[in-house]
């Protein structure tokens, strides 16, 4: 089959690889109908995450049709049109029972690569680094899905492929981030980042009852999406002082909750952002965390800080600000399986339509150009979809 493979830093190519097979009894094989770029892919494409191997098939946000099932798959059938969250989960360990799915104990074959860094390993992901399991990704014609009964969710009729696609990752990640904010009526939520996850966090904050949502970015077309599709107020951080603007917009209180949907390659115009940039370039640090630091500073006293951006081992984390302001910090990789049924229902009822994130539709063969566009945010690009 054809698949998009990582061959080194900033080196993606489409090549011919073997078809995936049923290996374990709970596996299914999907024919991929749509897959999409994700900002977290950029971290290994740019070479900031170790344990990639040349030739790895990438891609973790996808939906498709079940074409083959293993002998122990009971609930999912051939022909089902399904969406699959990006973390692979077993459904039976203590973490899965507690719905902390991305912490699943039983799906990372390379736990030993993570334990020295994290203490305890996380679940595996499709098409990511080998520390996250080394599973083949979904920018391909077919993909193997382990534990299909727990990880495949049938897409209701009336929900399109494009709508279902983002319920794989961008929507549940954003929704989880908004849930972390424990939103009460009258709350103001500020969201750093207007990429797929940020926009979905903003939308989810409204769904969960926020009074106002303030979106922060620098790209006019992304800020326009936040205004027009989500109903958020927007701040362009290259034009205004974000901290002052947020104070002003919240009667001097600061936002009740702040969501970081940016991560380790934040862009900024201040001294700390330039300092981060130099350190990251010299490989002295994995993270440029300007957006997160600003969110910590902006948050009201006793407020909620929800972190969705992906980070490495950060230094210069302003713990004193968090402590003295009594912030509650919540962070996680997406516990997608917990939210997908709810989100598919919202989509079926017409209350949630994430398909506006698609700005570019490419064939799988053109995926390297799609990633270039996505990475450089050219031509108003927010998300590129690939159809094999």
């Amino acid at each position, binding site marked *: *089959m054809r*698949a998009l*493979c990582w*061959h080194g830093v900033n080196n993606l*190519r489409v*090549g*011919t*690889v*073997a*078809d*995936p*097979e049923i*290996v*374990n*009894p*709970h596996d299914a094989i999907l024919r991929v109908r749509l897959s999409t770029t994700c900002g977290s892919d950029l971290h290994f494409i740019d070479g900031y995450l170790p344990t990639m*191997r*040349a*030739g*790895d*098939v990438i891609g973790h946000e996808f939906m498709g049709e079940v074409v083959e099932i293993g002998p*122990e798959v009971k609930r999912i059938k051939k022909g089902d049109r399904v969406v699959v969250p990006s973390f692979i989960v*077993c*459904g*039976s*360990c*203590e973490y899965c029972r507690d719905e902390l799915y991305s912490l699943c*104990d*039983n*799906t*990372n*074959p390379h*736990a*030993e690569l993570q*334990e020295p860094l994290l203490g305890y390993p996380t679940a*595996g992901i499709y098409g990511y680094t080998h520390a996250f*399991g*080394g*599973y*083949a990704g979904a920018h*391909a014609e077919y993909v*193997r899905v*382990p*534990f299909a009964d727990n990880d495949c969710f049938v897409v209701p009729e009336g929900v399109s492929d494009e709508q279902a696609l983002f319920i794989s990752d961008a929507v549940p990640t954003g929704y989880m981030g908004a849930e972390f904010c424990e939103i009460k009526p009258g709350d103001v939520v500020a969201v750093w980042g207007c990429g797929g996850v940020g926009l979905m966090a903003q939308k989810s904050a409204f769904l969960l009852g926020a009074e106002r949502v303030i979106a922060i970015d620098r790209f006019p077309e992304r800020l326009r999406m936040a205004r027009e599709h989500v109903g958020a107020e927007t701040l362009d951080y290259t034009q205004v002082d974000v901290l002052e603007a947020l104070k002003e917009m919240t009667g001097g209180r600061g936002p009740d909750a702040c969501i970081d949907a940016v991560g380790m390659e934040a862009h900024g115009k201040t001294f700390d952002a330039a300092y981060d940039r130099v350190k990251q370039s010299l490989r002295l640090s994995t993270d440029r965390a300007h957006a997160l630091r600003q969110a910590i500073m902006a948050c009201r006293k006793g407020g909620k800080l929800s972190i969705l951006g992906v980070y490495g081992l950060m230094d210069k984390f302003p713990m004193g600000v968090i402590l003295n302001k009594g912030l509650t910090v919540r962070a996680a990789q997406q516990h997608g399986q917990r939210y997908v049924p709810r989100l598919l229902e919202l989509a079926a009822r017409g209350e949630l339509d994430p398909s506006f994130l698609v700005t570019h539709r490419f064939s799988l063969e053109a995926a390297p150009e799609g990633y270039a566009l996505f990475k450089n945010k050219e031509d108003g690009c927010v998300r590129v979809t690939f159809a094999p």
Partner: protein
Amino acid sequence: MDTTLNREIERPSAERGAPPSAVDAAAVARTACILLGGVVAIEGVRRRSPVGMLTALAGAELIRQGIRGQGSFLRAMGVSREERLPEVIELTRTLTIGRSPDELYALWRNPETLPRLLDGMGTVAVRDETESDWRLKGPLGLHLAWRTRLIEDRPGELIAWMSQPGAWIPHAASVRFHAAPRDRGTEVALRLRIVPPGLLLGSPFEGRLRIVPGLLLQKLLRQFKSLAETGEVPTHRRAPACRGAGRDE
């Protein structure tokens, strides 16, 4: 097992209170050690094969021991400057598994389980109720093989086994099942005690005797947990990839 593993290894008596002539004997032995090492190393290099490589490494080790004046070879000749005893290396890894002690005991005793857990690292052939033949992959295409015998079997609680005479690395191991709090299942402790081969003492390989078995124990335990909780061991084997034959083997 304690008596065998913890027994005092008889130490050479040459060092303490040795007469002055012993110093000369030591000097002669060290020179001989260096010369012999040189011959062995050159011979090994000339062979240009994996066995030759090992021979050369052994030669280099002899030279090193000769220069440092201590090591297994000099100890064997009774002229080592050191007084080190081989310490028993003890490693324990613990994991909580969401099944009852009885279920886990039964799963461990199932003759199909250990071969599945070792898959890719080596093989275990269960001969009968008490004896198994192990074979682990090592570096340079070499294998470590040994036979173990069950020495303690308490259903739902403990299984212990020990390597039989002839094992290159004599060891004893046990798996212990202890009910975890609440509904969390069982705390499973896998324990390994190794008597390092004298040849490796003081050599760069001695440290590896702690690291490699530790990783192996942890991997065995993790895979045992996955098998117990889900009925399968996670893998990306045969995953499509743009290298080799188009997939991982």
